[in-house]
């Protein structure tokens, strides 16, 4: 295992001595998917050294969480990785639930799984569309966004919001999904497999696509683990590390699905892994649909933590008191720390919550997969051509909101 770190010393080129030049890529470059700036030292068209520079979107979400009650902070988690808001909700709520030591009803767990898997498909669709547009395939982008729209419509129907859903709450869900929502999911499930075939027809055998992605951006499995990479990028290197299988949460152990891996570890392998993951997610959604019981609670019975039902508040004094207390001062978990991890579309998303026994968290930390995967970018592109930089940024699949938090 090489122990040399991803080199990030300052680029200093003495004037007139070297034949290299320094190029500023970003922060307004369209293929950096946000505001990422990369300092590239170029020798002709070859990248000698790369130095990512970020923080342009730093909004101090972790600091803001410390000034909110545990329930209020959920709305902030949506805005970290804006392609995976439900996954962020889930990770944060799981961490707080672990801290409190409460269980979530099975029905809510299955609904969570279903929604998070739909979210994974929609996130991969955005990735595929934007990655293809970076490499010059315009039409895939339009097809991907057409299908993503269907997923967002389901979210809007269920949670009332297309993107910043805040639907998963501490102890369960915000409210029961409306009647008829499973028919919409069913319609989507019928449509989607043939659509994924369409993307594959457009890209998988396409000579230009293969030329731009095959053998580009190689990283060995040892280096990927050493650099803490997770998610499809690590699985494309042959390591079947998936939190849903290794450390199952939210009843994932009851679902049957495969963890797709490849061994080539290039941009094409990462593309193939994500396409296969979309198909696996469809399998999980199908199983979850059959598992969700038609009736049952979606919130755990934990007075003082989970807000009471509307009806109860009108008839029971205690319910009214709890409701008032939850929304004015919040609840106080016991002092301690909890770290919950979920498999987000980009890799392992972890939330670390520390409590000092007060109604506001002492510390909330997000282990952002985009941030940590981006660290490997210099390793992927150094020694390669400038045009490959774009393919590599694309297949790491970064969301700058999550990188900077």
């Amino acid at each position: 295992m090489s122990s040399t770190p991803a080199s990030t010393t300052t680029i200093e080129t003495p004037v007139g001595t070297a034949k290299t030049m320094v190029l500023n890529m970003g922060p307004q470059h369209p293929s950096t998917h946000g505001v990422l700036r990369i300092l590239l030292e170029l020798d002709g068209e070859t990248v000698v050294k790369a130095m990512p520079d970020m923080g342009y979107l730093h909004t101090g979400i972790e600091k803001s969480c410390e000034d909110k009650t545990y329930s209020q902070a959920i709305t902030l988690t949506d805005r970290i990785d804006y392609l995976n808001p439900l996954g962020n909700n889930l990770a944060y709520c799981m961490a707080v639930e672990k801290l409190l030591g409460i269980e979530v009803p099975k029905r809510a767990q299955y609904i969570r799984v279903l929604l998070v898997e739909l979210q994974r498909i929609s996130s991969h669709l955005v990735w595929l569309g934007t990655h293809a547009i970076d490499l010059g395939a315009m039409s895939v982008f339009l097809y991907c966004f057409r299908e993503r729209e269907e997923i967002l419509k389901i979210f809007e129907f269920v949670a009332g919001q297309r993107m910043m859903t805040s639907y998963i709450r501490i102890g369960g869900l915000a409210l029961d999904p409306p009647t008829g929502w499973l028919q919409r999911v069913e319609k989507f499930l019928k449509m989607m497999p043939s659509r994924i075939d369409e993307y594959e027809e457009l890209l998988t055998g396409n000579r230009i696509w293969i030329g731009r992605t095959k053998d580009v951006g190689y990283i060995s499995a040892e280096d990927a683990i050493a650099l803490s990479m997770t998610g499809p990028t690590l699985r494309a290197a042959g390591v079947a590390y998936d939190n849903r299988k290794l450390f199952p949460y939210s009843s994932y152990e009851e679902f049957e699905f495969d963890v797709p891996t490849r061994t080539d570890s290039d941009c094409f392998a990462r593309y193939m892994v994500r396409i296969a993951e979309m198909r696996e997610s469809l399998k999980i959604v199908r199983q979850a649909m059959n598992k969700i019981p038609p009736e049952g609670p979606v919130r755990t019975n934990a007075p003082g933590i989970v807000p009471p039902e509307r009806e109860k508040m009108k008839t029971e004094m205690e319910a009214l008191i709890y409701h008032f207390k939850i929304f004015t001062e919040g609840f106080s978990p016991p002092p301690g720390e909890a770290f919950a991890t979920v498999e987000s579309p980009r890799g392992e998303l972890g939330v670390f919550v520390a409590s000092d026994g007060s109604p506001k968290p002492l510390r909330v930390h997000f282990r952002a997969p985009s941030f940590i995967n981006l660290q490997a970018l210099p390793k992927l592109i150094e020694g390669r051509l400038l045009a490959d930089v774009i393919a590599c940024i694309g297949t790491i699949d970064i969301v700058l909101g999550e990188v900077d938090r």
Partner: protein
Amino acid sequence: MTETGKQNANVVVEGLRSWNPNAIAEVIEFRGETTIVVPPDMLLSVAEHCRDNKSLQFNLLTDATCVDRFPLEPRFELNYHLVSIPRRDKLRLRVRLPGNDPVVDSLVPVWPGANWLEREIFDLFGVRFNDHPDLRRILMPEDWEGYPLRKDYPVEGYRDIPPSATRYTRNRP
């Protein structure tokens, strides 16, 4: 906590203890998670042992973060979250550092992925890491004053703009 989880935790703790009794200052079990508190000067060797020992194999450093317990002392708590992919196990290493001079050895030689994580802690908490190859701010501007995630740093920031930040506001009306 499941039975196997408990056994795993015992194996790890006993393994470390038999390797070096000074490596463990305290073991905390909370909600099924094992935290091993390590003396700051032992951190690097404990991390190396965790990675290389055949019965531990913690090959992946998933996360490193800091907690500021101001005004308590020792003020800073560094938490390193380790995962062993072959053994399907998790572990948290913790180091406690004083507030007046928070310095600890960098873990970049053990896990190169610690590079940016430690830079983030340095940027937001002001904890310094010995022998870090590139200890610079990562999220805040280079000339930012103060460490925003410290508890004595106000949530809304400082109303008085520090002189070094005037270049961001100088040209505004």
